[in-house]
């Protein structure tokens, strides 16, 4: 599904953030990438999604056999890459349903499928809402405007359900959630696990991993993956902190 090789990336101001990432994600696998603040977790998510402001200096990312980095952000999304934002953006004046229908239809056009009209779209929405066990109260509002932290994250997972990505990258989806909201979001993610869908969860804490069990856990530090293992690695981290893996400053952050 995803093959990252020796990926180096720096900010436009020249600071190098990713210093040689190697990661291989197979079909249907769930990977967790953990690490302290400033280790490069969110940069990795941004680079994969195609956000501006980063320069790739070395390495490659292959997604389903194609050069991911050569595609513009919107094409990546239409090809099945989904980023759940750490900070979902508020877009006043743009209705959530209208936005989502445009997104779903952009993907359908890309795949040569017919677009969904308002009625067809609504039927799909209702089915997905039921599946995720979330209400439809968010649909008629402007995208993320006035949403609570929990509502924003729930909306991200709802979008993921609607867009049915091949590769979902969840960037700190657990941050800022109370335990009830976390359960709802985790339930949503678990419901979306599938043999042809891979998920990369980026998180600071082990908490989310109690609810969404990963197949692989990686520790990211100073722009490199310093250790990989199974889910027991996450538990170990919880006990010992990131300090075990090197930079004590990082552990304190």
């Amino acid at each position, binding site marked *: 599904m995803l093959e990252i090789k020796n990926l180096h990336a720096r900010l436009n101001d020249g600071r190098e953030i990713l210093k040689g990432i190697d990661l291989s994600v197979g079909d249907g696998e769930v990977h967790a990438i953990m690490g302290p603040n400033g280790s490069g977790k969110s940069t990795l998510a941004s680079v994969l999604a195609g956000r501006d402001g980063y320069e790739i200096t070395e390495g490659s990312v292959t997604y389903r056999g194609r050069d991911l980095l050569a595609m513009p*952000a919107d094409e990546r999304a*239409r090809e099945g890459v989904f980023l759940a*934002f750490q900070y979902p953006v508020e877009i*006043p004046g*743009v209705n959530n349903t209208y*936005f989502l229908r*445009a997104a779903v239809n952009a993907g359908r056009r890309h795949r040569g499928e017919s677009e969904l009209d308002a009625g067809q779209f609504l039927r799909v929405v209702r089915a997905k809402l039921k599946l995720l066990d979330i209400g439809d109260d968010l649909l008629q509002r402007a995208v993320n405007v006035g949403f609570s932290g929990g509502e924003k994250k729930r909306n991200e997972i709802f979008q993921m359900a609607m867009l049915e990505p091949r590769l979902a990258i969840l960037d700190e989806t657990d941050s800022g959630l109370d335990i009830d909201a976390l359960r709802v979001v985790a339930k949503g993610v678990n419901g979306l696990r599938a043999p042809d869908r891979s998920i990369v969860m980026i998180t600071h804490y082990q908490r989310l991993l109690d609810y969404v069990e990963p197949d692989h856990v990686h520790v990211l530090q100073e722009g490199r993956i310093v250790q990989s293992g199974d889910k027991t690695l996450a538990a170990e981290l919880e006990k010992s902190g990131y300090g075990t893996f090197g930079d004590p400053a990082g552990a304190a952050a």
Partner: protein
Amino acid sequence: MSAVVEFPAKPEARDYLACFARDITEPGWLAARRQQSMTRFAELGFPSRRSENWRYLDLQPLQQHPLLPARATATATDEATLRRRLSAVSLPDGNSRLVLVDGRFSPALSNLKLPKGVWFGSMAQAMRDRADLVQAAIEDNAADSAHPFTALNTAFFADGYVLDIAVELALDRIIEIIHLGSGATAGSFHTRSLISLGNGARARIVETYIGEGRYWRNDVVAVQLGTGAELSRAVLVEEGIEAVHLAQVDATLGTNSSFDGFALLLSGRRARQEANVRIVGEGARCRLDGAFLVAGNDEANIVTAVDHAAVGGRTRELIKGVAAGRGHGAFQGRIVVREHAQKTDAQQTSRNLIIGRRAVIDTKPELEIYADDVKCAHGATVGDLDEAALFYLRARGIPDDEARQMLIEGFLREAVEEIDDAAAREYLLRRLAARLARPEE
């Protein structure tokens, strides 16, 4: 009969002067008033670019290529074609509708049924049936002396509409007014209208300006609100791509009355919506909201002036503008609070988006406060599309162009969504979406 020039007339006024003629069927007071206004226009000529009130609109082309008042001729465009054009800009049926084609009332396209206590019809008709009301309003308009195009309007207006609602009568139906330029003749359409609401009366108006071809619309509307009267008026400007649209509403607000004005400017080569509100009764409320979208080489201006001349008045203004291509948009908003107009509460906000490097936005708020116990605030912003929002949309697969359109529409929708009346709001939102779906010229 051409008027004899006995005063220094500005060169650009001469062609208009030459076609000015007395209509012998009109009453003496009107003839006198028209003559006086014609003289005034000849003296004033077109506003210069140095004129503060007109500095953001390029009137040179109009000055160089006069568009003389259109004569009353049978329109060359057939009724079926006109009906087709109207259908796009009509609200759902059942409303009272008045249609003016090339500045003149069209009985065939209108539907004036209204309850007792309401007088609604063409200005031409009103001058016969409601002479006293019309005379008072036209003679009362002091704007003539300073405003050249108002003077020109007084000299030449052929028609318009009058809506007069009796005391305590609330209209539940929306009143729909459509100004249609047929494209049959190049010329100017001077329309003069009057909205008069008695004490406690209520009305909602949706007024649309559309057209084809090369024309100049010069529209003046007077609004008089009695004690506790409430008027909402939503204006949609979708003029033809070569059209010049200059429209002005002059409102006088009585005690505890409420005027809710909205202007959405979507097309026209040069479009200007001006609102002048005088708050003369205590506790009157005024809302002047609006939005404009300019692209191509177009220009759009929203100009407001609110004069708080009574205690406890309240003004709210939210104007949002988008300029793309080589478009030039401007907002000029003036609020005056007179010395005795204590407890005035006025807020003005102008928010603008510039798309691309060649578009221009001007925004000029002006507060003049002579009272000491007031709350007044204004704010203005001009910015680019929000990059974070753009990335968010693209990260969901929406192509770049479409994402930009969505953000522009969202930005303008926010202003339109402030309209209280659902039918008017939905109508303007629908037209806004249709405008953005149209490929750029």
